[in-house]
C-alpha cells in the first residue's frame, strides 16, 4: 500500500499515513486531487479508481471516507476488506466509533493503524492480537480508552 487517507464528506482530512517517501508538496497535491475526485463519485459507482499509475480503493462509512492507494498488481477487494477491518478495530476500541472519536483521538487511531498495518503491509490480521497490543501500551497511560460519545453518528451500524 502506498498511503491511506481518511477524510470527511466536507473534504477535511482526518488521518493520513504515507508509506512511500514523498515531499510535503506532493502529499498536499495528491490529497487535494484525490479528495476532490473521490467526493465527486456517485454512491453507486464502484469503489475503485485508476489514478495516475495507482489504484485507489475507497469506502464511505457514515460521514467518513477511507481511501487507500495500492499498486496495480495488488488485489482491490482485499484492500477494501483491510479498510473494513480497520474500521472494525476502531469500532471495537472506541465502542461504536464515530467521526468525532477519530477527530479528538486521532493519535489513538494512528496507534491502532500502526499495529494493524506496518510499512504498508498487513502486519497482524487477528483482531484480538491487535487490540491486545494496543491495550498493553495503553495500560501505561493513566487514562482508559475513551468511552463512546453518544452524540456522534457511528460509522458502522451494528
Amino acid at each position, binding site marked *: 500500500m502506498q498511503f491511506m487517507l481518511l477524510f470527511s464528506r466536507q473534504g477535511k482530512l482526518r*488521518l493520513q499515513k504515507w508509506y512511500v517517501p514523498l515531499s510535503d508538496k506532493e502529499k498536499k497535491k495528491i490529497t487535494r486531487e484525490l479528495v476532490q475526485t473521490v467526493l465527486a463519485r456517485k454512491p453507486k459507482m464502484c469503489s475503485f479508481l485508476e489514478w495516475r499509475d495507482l489504484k485507489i480503493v475507497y469506502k464511505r462509512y457514515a*460521514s467518513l471516507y477511507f481511501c487507500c492507494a495500492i499498486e496495480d498488481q495488488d488485489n482491490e*477487494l482485499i484492500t477494501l476488506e483491510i479498510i473494513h477491518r480497520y474500521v472494525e478495530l476502531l469500532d471495537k476500541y472506541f465502542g461504536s466509533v464515530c467521526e468525532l472519536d477519530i*477527530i479528538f483521538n486521532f493519535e489513538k487511531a494512528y496507534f491502532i493503524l500502526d499495529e494493524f498495518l506496518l510499512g504498508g503491509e498487513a502486519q497482524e490480521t*487477528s483482531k484480538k492480537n491487535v487490540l491486545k*497490543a494496543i491495550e*498493553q501500551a495503553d495500560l501505561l497511560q493513566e487514562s482508559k480508552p475513551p468511552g463512546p460519545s453518544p452524540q456522534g453518528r457511528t460509522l458502522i451500524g451494528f
Partner: protein
Amino acid sequence: MSDVVEKTLSALPGLFDSQTGAARITSRLRQLVKSITELTSKNEEESLIKQELSSMKEQVSSPNTSMMREIMVRAMYCEMLGYDASFTYIHAIKLAQQGGVLEKRVGYLAVSLFLNEGHELLLLLVNTVLKDLQSTNVIEAYMALTVVAQVFPKDMIPAVLPLLEDKLSYPKEIIRRKAVLALYKFYLIAPNQVQHIHAKFRKALCDRDPGVMTSSLHIYLQLITESPDDYKDLTGSFVTILKQVVGGKLPVDFNYHNVPAPWLQIQLLRILSLLGKEDRSTSELMYEVLDESLRRAEMNHNITYAILYECVKAIYTIHPKAELLEKAARCIGNFVLSPKINLRYLGLKALTYVVQHDAKLALQHQMTIIECLDHTDFTIKRETLELLFRITNAQNVTVIVEKMLDFLHGCSDEHTIIHLVGKVAELAEKFAPDNSWFIQTMNDVFSTGGDLLQQDVPNNFLRLLAEGSESKEEDDQLRLYAVNSYLTVLKGDASHLPQRFLQVMSWVLGEYAHLQESVDQREVIRLLTQLLDQRSVSSETRVWILSALTKISEGQTDLILDLAESLSSSQDTVLRQQAQELRQLSQDSQLYEWVLPRGAPWDSMEVDSSLSFLDGFVSEALAAGAAPYKPPHQRQEELCEDRALNLEPYSFSLPVSLSSCSITDRQSPTLLSVSSGLSGNSTELSQKAGSSTLILEGVKRVWGRDGYLRQNETTAPPVDEPSAAVQPSGQQEAAERLEPQPEPSTQNQDKLQLASSLFVGLGAGSSMSLLGKSEAPPPRFRKKPRPHESSSSSSSGTSERSSDSSSRSSHSTTDSFLYGSLLEEEPATSISAFSHTPKSSTANGLAQNKDTKEDRRANTSQILGGDMVIVRPNTFQDKHPSLVSSDLTALLPADLKDLPHSDVISLTSDPSLSLSSCRLFRDEALLLVILISNCTETVIKDVAVQLTCEELETASLRGNVMNCLEGNSTSVCHYALLMDEPHTNVSFTGTVSYQTQPGHTNTLSFSGTLSAADFIRPLVVSTEEYGKLWLSLSHDVKQNLKLLTDASDPLRTTLNALKDALQLHVVDIIGSEGIVACRLLSGAPCLLHCRVNGAALAMWLRSPHPALPDCILYHCQRALAQH
C-alpha cells in the same frame, strides 16, 4: 453548515464533561478543534493556526515532557490541516529520546508522521532507537521496532541490524513479528545489507506463531518475485501452509468473516503463482491445493471473492491444467455477472488477464462487456477498454479503436489519455486495415494525445514511415497518403494543433512532399512558412519546420532567401543558425546535393555516435592542460562526497565495527531486477507482439480491405447471419444462446451488432488456448529489421534485433525468419502435444526429478497441535540433477573443447526430446550450449531452437536449425551471450520446435537462469597496473563480508574461495590485504581491495561501471555464504 459539523458542536460540551485525566492533557487540542469548526472562512483558520503555532513555538523548549506530548499532538493536527510545523520535528525526536514510555509513544508517532526516509534529522533518532532496542522494557523495544519498520536512514542499517537479528528469536511473538517487518523494510531499501540473513528468514517462516509466519511471507513474496528459481524448494512448504489454512487449522482469531486468514491465503496464492510460472513440475505440486481453495471459497462475501480472484490469476499463471482452467473460467463468470459493481470490475480485470491466454473466454461475456462499455462509471469503462485492447485483432480493430477514441474525446485525465493514446497507436500500427484508416487514426492520436503524448509514439510512427517495408511501392503509397492528409490539415486552421503533431507533419512534408507531383512545391513551402508565422508554434517546432523547408527548398531560391532573411534576425539562436545554413545551401546547389541528397536510402546514413572525429581535438586540449571529461553522474557523486556528513556511527555497545557506508544513492542490482520483475506482465505481452514480426504470407489478402468486418457491419446481427459458416464457432454458440430472446428491441439489436463486430475473429483459433501461445496476427506494417545497431558478435546473420513496433519491448530477439514456415504449420497440434505429455518419462532427468519431489514432500511441514504450523523447509542446492553425459566434449566443435565449462544441467524434456545445457566460458562471451537428445528410436525432423533473453545480447553460433536428428542421438547448438549491463541474475527462455511426423509440429519450451558470475572473467594485471587503474576508477562500494576463518590463512582461503566461484584474478596478497581484479567479459574492469578486519573481510570495490561493484559484491556474498 452541514449536519455533521452541527453535531460536532453539540457534542463538544459533553465530551469535555465526560473526560477527565486524559482530557486535561489533550484539552488544548480539543479547544483548537472546536475553534476551528466554528470558523467559516479559510482566512480565519489560517490566522488561528498561525497564532496557535506561535504559541507552541514559545512553549516548545519546555522541559515538561507531558506538556511536550500535548504540543506534539497539536503539531500533528496542524500538519494534517496542511500547515507547516517543521520547527517541532526536532522536538519530536527529543521527546522520543527523553520522555517516559508515554511520551516516547507520541514522540515516535510524530517522527513517523513528520519525517520521510531521507530526512536528515532521522540520523538523530538512531541513537534513541539503539537504546530502546536494547531496553529490557518490552514496550520500549516494541515502539522502537514500530518506528524502524517505517522510517530509518538507509546508511545506518548496519548499526541496528545485529540487534534486529537478535529480536528474531525474542520470546514475545509481537517483537519477532515487528522485527521481521523491519527486516522486510530494510530489504526493500537496501537489499544488499540483509543478504546474509536469508537463513533467518527461513526460521521466521517456520515460526510457531502464525502472525510471525505471515509477516515473513512479505519478504518471500519480494524475494520470489525477483528470483523465483532460488526458492523452488520451498514450494512444498507453501503448499502445505495453504492447505492448513484452507482446512481451517489456524486459530479462530485469524478468521475474518468466517474465512480463515484471507490475507495469508492471498499472499500464499501469489507466491505460488510466481513459483509455478512456466514450471511444470512445480505447478504440479500445487494443483490440488488450488482446486481446494476454489472449492472452499464459496460463501458470498467480498473476502471470498478476493481469494477467488487470486486463485483464478494463479491458475492462469502457472503451467496450465485443463480441469482447473475450466473451473477458473466458470468462476470468472460469477464475477462478471454479479450485480455488485465492485465484483464486476474485478471480473473485467480477471478477464483482461485471462484473455491473454485464451481470447475465446471473452466471447462468453460479450453482452456484459458491451454493457460495461456504456457504463456511467469511468473506472468500469476504462477497464473494459483495457480488455478490448487485449482481444484486438485485424478484424475488429476499427471498432475497438473507434470506441477508444470516443472515450478519449470525453476524457480529461492526463494519465488516462497518455496511457490510452499509446495503446491506440500500438493497435493502429499492428492491425491497420489500410493506409487511409491508419493515417486518419494516427492524426486522431496526435491531435487528441497532444503534447502529453509519450515521445516514442511520434518517433515510432516516423520510423515506420521512413524505414518502410519490403515493397517500395506500398511504402510510397502510405507516405503519399500521409502527405495529402497533412496538406489538407494545414490548409485548415492549424493554430489549435499540438506541437508534436505539427512536428510530425513538417517532418513528413519535408521528406516526402516531392512524392505528390500534382501539388506545387511552392504551395507546400507556403503552408509551412505560414506555420512559422503563427504565434502558438513553439520554437522547437519552428526548428522542425525550418528543417523541413530546408529539405524541400531546392530550386525555390527566391522564396527561401526571403524566408532566411526574415529569420536571420530571430531571437532564437538555433533558428538564426538554421536560417544562415538555409541561405548558404540555397545559394550553392552543389553543396546542397552533397548535404541533402534526394532519395538516398534512409538507413545508409552513418552516425558516428562515439564522436571519434573529435579525438584529435580532445587530445590537443588535454595536452594543453585541460581537465579530462567526467560524465555527469560522476561529477554529481564527487560533489556529494565533498559535502557529505560523516555517517559513521559512534561506537555504542555494539558488536559490529563498520568500516564505512556508501553514501550515494546507488541502484543495487537486486533493485534493478525488482523493477524488471514488476513489469513482467507487460513485457510478456510485448514479447508475444514481438514474435509477430513473423509475417505469414498471404494473410493480408484474406483480411484485406474487404475483410469480414465490413460485411458484418452492414448485415444483420449474427443470429440470422446467412454466412454463418465463416463465423467462428464460439461466436455461433453465443448467438444461439441469444436466439430465444423474443423480438430483440432495437437497442438490443444495436448491441448485438456491436458484439458481432467487437468479438469477430476471437473464436477463429478455437484450438489455441491452453498454452496461450497463440500467434498474433501479422502486423500490417512490418518494419525492416534495422541495420545492426550494436556490434555484437557478428558471426551470425540469423539473429537480428527486431525494431519492435511496440515501444515497450525493444529487445526481443527474433531469429525466426529462417524457419518461419515451420511455426506456421498447425499451431494447434503443437499445443495438444504439450498438454498431453505422459507423466512417466523415458528421460533420466525427469525420473530423478520426481524422486526429489517425493523427498521434498516427505520433508515438509506437518501440523503439531491444533494451532501451530510448523514448517521445515529444506535446502536443495541443485535442483537440476545433471544428465549422464560425460562425453560433452566429444560433441563440441574442436575449437571449444578446451574451454572451461560448467556441469551439464537438464533443462526440460518430453517423451521425444530431452534438453540440457552447459555454459562455456570464453573470454569475450559466455557460450550457452544446448544439447538436444533424441530419446526415441525414430528420426526427428526439422528441429529448430529459439532462445530469448531480454537483458543479454544473444547470437546464435551454430546448429539452431537441424534437418534431422537420428534416434538416440544428441546434437548441440550454441549461443554466444554478451552482458553489457551488469545484472545479478538473468533468465532466458526459449522453445524447440520439431516434427516427429511430417506436418506435425511439436514445441517444447525451456527456461533457465544465468548469473553475473558466468560473465565475470579474470583480469590479469600487475600490482603497479592495478594501482594506476584503481586511482582512475570512480564508482566504489564498501562492505564487510564474511571471512572464512576455519583455515590457517583466512585471507588466502577466502580469496581462493571467491576466485573459484567467480573466476577472479588474485593480483597480490600482502600481509592482511589482498588485491583482486576481474572484468565483465572483455568490458568494464572491477577492482577489489580486501583487508582483514577482525573476523570480517572489509571489501572495497571500484569500477568504471556504477552497477558492477554491487553486482559482484552480491555474488561474493553468496559464494561465501554457500561455502
